[in-house]
């Protein structure tokens, strides 16, 4: 009797377990579910990146703490103008102590993937000196 009941329960549960497993497999395989669509243009981050040297290549400059005399920190976004010219187009700073706070720049690249979809590029300072190439073309 017990074995028969157990067998019945097992038969009823098997499709349910299979369905759950299949759903989990689909979720894992779906691009984006686990950040699979990551597209980042600085593979060696957090090491310093080379300065941008082409059209549409901007870069983010970190650790500009001198303006606060060692107190506070900024993240800067520079636009490449050609040759050796760059223009500061955005700066985010905090006067809070740089040992406990960090700053970042966010830009949206509407056409980064050719479909007009929005990509986010968040770049964090983490009190690391250096530059990070940021491309939106």
């Amino acid at each position: 009797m017990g074995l028969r009941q157990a067998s019945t329960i097992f038969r009823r549960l098997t499709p349910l377990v299979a369905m759950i497993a299949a759903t989990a497999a689909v979720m894992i395989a779906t691009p984006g579910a686990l950040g699979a669509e990551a597209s980042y243009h600085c593979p060696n981050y957090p090491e310093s990146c080379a300065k941008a040297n082409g059209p549409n290549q901007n870069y983010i400059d970190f650790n500009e703490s001198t303006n606060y005399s060692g107190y506070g920190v900024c993240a800067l976004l520079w636009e490449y103008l050609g040759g050796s010219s760059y223009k500061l187009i955005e700066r985010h700073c905090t006067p809070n102590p740089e040992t406990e706070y960090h700053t970042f720049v966010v830009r949206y690249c509407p056409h980064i993937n050719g479909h007009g979809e929005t990509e986010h590029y968040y770049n964090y300072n983490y009190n690391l000196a250096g530059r990070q190439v940021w491309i939106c073309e």
Partner: protein
Amino acid sequence: MSRSSFLILRSRNARLLTAVSITLLAAMTGTAMILAKGAVNSSAARYRRTPAGAFAVLSQKARRAHRASINGPRGAVLATSLGSHQVYAWTGSSAEALASLHVNMPSAASDICLIEQEPGIGGGGTCGSAKAVAQHGIVGVSEVGDSLHRIVSVLVPNGVEYVTFTDRDGSSYNVKVTHNAVIVDDQDLAAPPTTAVSYKLPGGTTEAMPMPGAPSGL
């Protein structure tokens, strides 16, 4: 023992077994409910004790209410806005934030962030350790465009009623805190080293901060 006596006894045993089973089940259910309630209460108490608990805007209720919005950074809560500029509060581990934003950076730290952005364009912000932010708040200065137009946003813990801004001419004014945040568009804020932003924390301490100087490297 006669057959009828055996049947009666068997019937009584079955009833007894059923009663014992029901009692046991009820006891187990009750215990489970008490334990679950305790766990919820404990969790709530723990939440209130975390640094993020110092910010009503980061409460679980506010975060749930914000889930439907698609304009803000993932997991962030819209605190206040000024024109097209929006101020968000965010909390979580740095590693979690970076992973959701496609950046791999190992960190177990818990952060609270102040994010200022214009939807579809960009923005930026400041993060600090949750403990530091709960104690001091965050002042974020965003400068954007050819003229580096300055927007100042502030995230303060519960109990801070207003933030004071001081201009170059020495005049000052208060801005009421909304959802732990304040945002102003003021191009005349006092230059360093004069304090441009200040607020009084619930403990009585006053945070006073200057604006950044001119960018270097231009």
